[in-house]
């Protein structure tokens, strides 16, 4: 990614002061966002263009809209706000549901071996206004992922589906302003090989970090103990080692420890029916 692109990617996520009489436009991957500040109100509209050309296009931080042609054609949402601040910030967040990652080709991990691969996760754009006491107006996915079911048809859960090439080396991971890279480490601690076709990543426990040239999430480690035993999944507590200087820009939707307890109790509840 060129230096100019890197600079643009950083600016997309920085806070801005808006003038009250101007329509603003931002582009984050396939997502186009329009914003306007009226006295007492905020107006937001969006649309997506999920084409190959758009995906490769540079991001655009909030800037006065070049043309008003789209403004009237859009569906606007309106929020009542105080008169205090015209500051706005777009923040990248993880999707609101777990992700089922499916490698393009099934991955076979021999016993006692481990494999590290990277997954590019499309972020959601969180619109925060009234900084520093931020009020969240809305959250918009940059890419609308398809739904999938993880688990059996009776007790599973609804997730998003994401296919990945599962690159093993960072330089093979495409750089996109709207994608956060999640390193996934799988350790096969079982006595048999692991034929891995899909994995469910609890992205709601992951933070988003802004690095030099990319967005990151915490590293996820999966310990496989055998098909008849539950695998253990750990989320790192800081930025991954690949970019230690990355600063946390968005906290996880749910802290990991609390959710683990919650899942355990839900399992007990389903056993007793109470």
């Amino acid at each position, binding site marked *: 990614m060129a230096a100019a692109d890197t600079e643009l990617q950083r600016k997309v996520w920085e806070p801005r002061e808006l003038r009250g009489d101007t329509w603003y436009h931002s582009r984050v991957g396939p997502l186009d966002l329009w914003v306007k500040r009226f006295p007492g109100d905020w107006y937001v509209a969006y649309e997506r263009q999920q084409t190959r050309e758009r995906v490769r296009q540079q991001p655009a931080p909030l800037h006065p809209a070049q043309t008003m042609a789209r403004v009237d054609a859009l569906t606007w949402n309106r929020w009542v706000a105080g008169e205090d601040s015209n500051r706005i910030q777009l923040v990248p967040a993880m999707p609101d549901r777990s992700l*089922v990652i499916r490698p393009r080709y099934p991955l076979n991990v021999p016993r006692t071996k481990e494999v590290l691969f990277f997954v590019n996760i499309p972020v959601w754009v969180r619109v925060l206004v009234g900084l520093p006491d931020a009020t969240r107006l809305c959250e918009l996915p940059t890419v*609308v992922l*398809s*739904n*999938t*079911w*993880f688990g059996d*048809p*009776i007790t*599973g859960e*609804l997730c998003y*589906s994401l296919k990945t090439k599962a690159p093993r080396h960072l330089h093979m991971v495409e750089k996109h302003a709207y994608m956060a890279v999640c390193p996934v480490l799988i350790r096969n601690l079982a006595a048999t090989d692991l034929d891995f076709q*899909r994995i469910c990543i609890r992205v709601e426990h992951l933070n988003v970090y802004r690095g030099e040239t990319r967005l990151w999430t915490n590293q996820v480690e999966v310990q496989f103990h055998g098909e008849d035993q539950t695998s253990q999944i750990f989320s790192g507590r800081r930025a991954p080692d690949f970019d230690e200087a990355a600063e946390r820009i968005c906290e996880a939707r749910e802290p990991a420890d609390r959710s683990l307890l919650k899942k355990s109790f839900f399992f007990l509840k389903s056993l007793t029916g*109470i």
Partner: protein
Amino acid sequence: MLQRAFQELVKFFTLDKLQQLILAVLVAVVGLILLRFLSALIKRMTRKYLSQQYSMLVRKAIQYTGAVVVLFIILSVLGVKINALLGAAGIVGIAVGFAAQTSMSNLISGLFLISEKPFQIGDVIKVGDKSGVILSIDLLSVKIQTFDNQYIRIPNSLLLNTELTNVTRFPIRRLDIKLTVSYRTDVTRLREVLLAIAGTNTFCLDEPEPLIVFADFKESGLEFLFGVWFHRSDYLGLKNSIMQQIKERFETEGIRFAFPHRSLDTDAVPLPVALVGSGRSPSRKAARRPAEK
């Protein structure tokens, strides 16, 4: 005579009797208030630990028991002999039991339904040709709200003895669509098109994967079963969108739906057709001939 009756009445209501009456009214009022308070307290306490049905059951049991206790206290205050009353109540109970068989059946069925839990409030059920959302599960009946906003009361005994479908029991469902296409259809291409439709429909789940079954060779076409999975809340959105997508995509791809028709095949190709006469029907010709002569 009226005056005499009035005098008898005044003689009956002595001071003692009036005191008893006032006490009885007080007991009734206080008793009912206490029962309501108790019912509200139990509802609050059991909300977190018991399901709505069990909570309702516990409250009803306490309410009815409490009402009977209050009634006996009132009767005792009024000086009525309880023992004789209990004896008579036994006989009356047998008579009422025979008369109220249906109600008792519904009551017992209600208890079975509550313990078996085939559904709960908020579920969508189908009973016979009726379907709707369950509003309440009571001791004698279940109330449902249909999708066109009608209120239906279904006796519990009917529910217990009938086949019932709980549409929303499980979180995901499969929508099965039967498609009959022309015999000239490229089956491989058809599968690709159907999978592509499922892939682009936002309501279809990626997994479990869509199901395509080559079901049968029918009289007029090839029959396929196309099954797509969806979250139970997306039924209407999926049904409308996928039907439209199938129609539009089939038109684009030149895939034809089958319709009843007959094909006539002979050994000679093409089938020779010769025009005979001026096109009038033979019966008209025969009718006209005598006149022409």
